[in-house]
C-alpha cells in the first residue's frame, strides 16, 4: 500500500466512524481530560499557595517544579509503574495497566505546568493587587479566590498547555497502560504500534485526529486570550 492509498484509507476510517477507531479516540480524550481536570484541581490552589507563601527553601521548590515541566514522559511512566507494580507501594490497588494508571501518569506530567504557570501568574497579579486587597481585609490566603478568578483567562491557557502535553505524549501511557487493545490503547500508543506493524491507515487516521485536536486546542487558547483582553482588560 503506498502513501496515497494509506491516506485515503485513513480518511475513510475517520469519516466512516469505525467503532474500534472511535473507541481509541474516546479513551484518549477521557484519559487526558480526566488527568487535566485532576491536575487543575490540585495545581491551581497549590500554585496560588506557593505564590503567596514565604518559607525557606521556596526558591528550591520553584526551581524543582519548573524543572519538572520538562520531565520526560517515559520517566514519569517509569515512576508510576514502580509505584503501581505488584511489588510497589501501591501494588495492592491493582491499578497497573488500567486507564486509571494512565490518568495518574498524565496528571503527573500536567501538574508541574499548572503549578508553575499559576504560581507565576498569581504572584504577578498579587504584586499589583496587594494593597487594595489588604485594604479590603483580604490578606494572606484570603486573597487567593480573587487572584485565581482575575487570572482566569491566563490560567485557562496554562490548563490548555497541559492538555496539549498530555494528549501528545506516548511514553508514560505506554508504560503504565500497556497498550491493551480496547482497554488502554490510546491514539499515541496505537500510532506507535500500528506504524511498526505496518497498519498505516489506522496510524495516519489517528495522527490526523491528533493534529486536528492540537489545532483545536490552539484555537481555543487564542480565543481565550482574546476574550480575556476584551472582558478583563
Amino acid at each position, binding site marked *: 500500500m503506498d502513501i496515497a492509498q494509506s491516506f485515503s484509507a485513513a480518511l475513510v476510517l475517520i469519516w466512516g466512524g469505525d467503532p474500534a477507531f472511535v473507541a481509541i479516540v474516546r479513551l484518549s480524550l477521557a484519559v487526558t481530560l480526566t488527568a487535566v481536570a485532576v491536575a487543575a484541581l490540585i495545581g491551581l490552589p497549590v500554585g496560588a499557595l506557593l505564590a503567596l507563601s514565604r518559607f525557606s527553601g521556596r526558591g528550591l521548590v520553584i526551581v524543582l517544579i519548573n524543572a519538572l515541566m520538562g520531565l520526560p514522559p517515559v520517566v514519569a511512566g517509569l515512576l508510576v509503574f514502580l509505584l503501581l507494580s505488584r511489588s510497589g507501594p501501591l501494588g495492592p490497588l491493582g491499578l497497573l495497566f488500567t486507564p486509571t494508571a494512565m490518568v495518574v501518569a498524565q496528571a503527573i506530567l500536567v501538574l508541574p505546568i499548572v503549578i508553575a504557570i499559576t504560581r507565576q501568574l498569581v504572584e504577578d497579579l498579587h504584586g499589583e*493587587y496587594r494593597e*487594595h486587597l*489588604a*485594604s*479590603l*481585609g483580604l490578606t494572606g490566603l484570603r486573597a487567593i479566590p480573587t487572584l485565581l478568578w*482575575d*487570572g482566569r483567562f491566563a490560567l485557562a491557557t496554562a490548563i490548555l498547555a497541559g492538555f496539549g502535553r498530555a494528549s501528545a505524549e506516548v511514553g508514560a501511557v505506554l508504560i503504565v497502560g500497556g497498550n491493551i487493545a480496547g482497554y488502554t490503547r490510546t491514539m499515541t500508543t496505537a500510532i506507535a504500534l500500528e506504524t511498526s506493524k505496518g497498519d498505516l491507515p489506522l496510524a495516519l487516521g489517528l495522527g490526523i485526529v491528533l493534529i486536528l485536536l492540537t489545532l483545536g486546542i490552539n484555537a481555543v487558547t487564542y480565543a481565550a486570550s482574546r476574550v480575556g483582553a476584551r472582558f*478583563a*482588560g
Partner: protein
Amino acid sequence: MTVMRETTSVLPLAVTGLAFEAGGKRLVDAIGFTIPRGGLTVLIGPNGSGKSLTLRLCHGLLTPSAGRIAWAADHGVIAGHKRHAMVFQKPVMLRRSALANVEHALAAAGAGWSERRTRAREALDRFGLTDKADRPARLMSGGEQQRLAIARAWALRPEILFLDEPTSQLDPGATRQIEQMILALKAEGVTLVMATHDMGQARRLADRVLFLHRGRLVEDAAAETFFSGPASAEARAFIAGDLVW
C-alpha cells in the same frame, strides 16, 4: 434605604510618636496628630516627605516600627465592619466590570449577594457611573478609574477615607471631577485625610494642613493659618514654590 444611626464612632484617630523604618532607615519619625470627626485634612509636603507612608500606617497596610495609632474603636472596626477605607494614587482595578469591582469590595466586607448588587448600583449611580457599570474597569480612562475607586470605597460606607494623591496622574478635567466628588463626600459627613503635593489642590480643599518634611510633621494648622503665615522656614519655602529637600 434606611440610614443606620451610629451610636459609636471609630473617631477620633489619635496618632502618637509614629515611626516607620525600612532597610535600616527611619522614613517617618515622631509623627503625632489627632483626626476628629468631619473635615478634610491635607497631608502636604515634597516627594519623600512621608505622606503616603503615614496614610498607609494609619490604614493598617504597614506596621509601625514605633508609636501608636489609636482608634476610638479597636483597629477602626465596629461590629465587624472596618470603618476606614483608602483610595490609592494609581487605582487598582480588578479584571472585571466596574459593577463587579464594587461588588467584590462589598463581598470582602461580608455583604450578602443581593445587598452587594443593590449597594454597588447605588454607588455607581451616586457618582454618575451608571452607564459604565458593565464596562471592563481596566479599559476605562484614568479619570473614570479613579472615580470608580472612590465609588468603590464609598460603597463600604467608611467613616473616614484616606486618599493618597488621588489626582496626581490625572488631567485637569478629571482632577476637577475628583475634587468635586471629594467635596461631596465631605458634605456628606465623611472624614477625609488626603495626601497631595499640589499646593493649588490643598488650597482648594483643605480645612486643615499637616505639613510633612523629611519624615517629620513640621506644621499642623488650620488651612487659612497655614497658607497665610506658615510658621516654619520649610513650609514657607514650599509655599513659595521652592524645591525643598
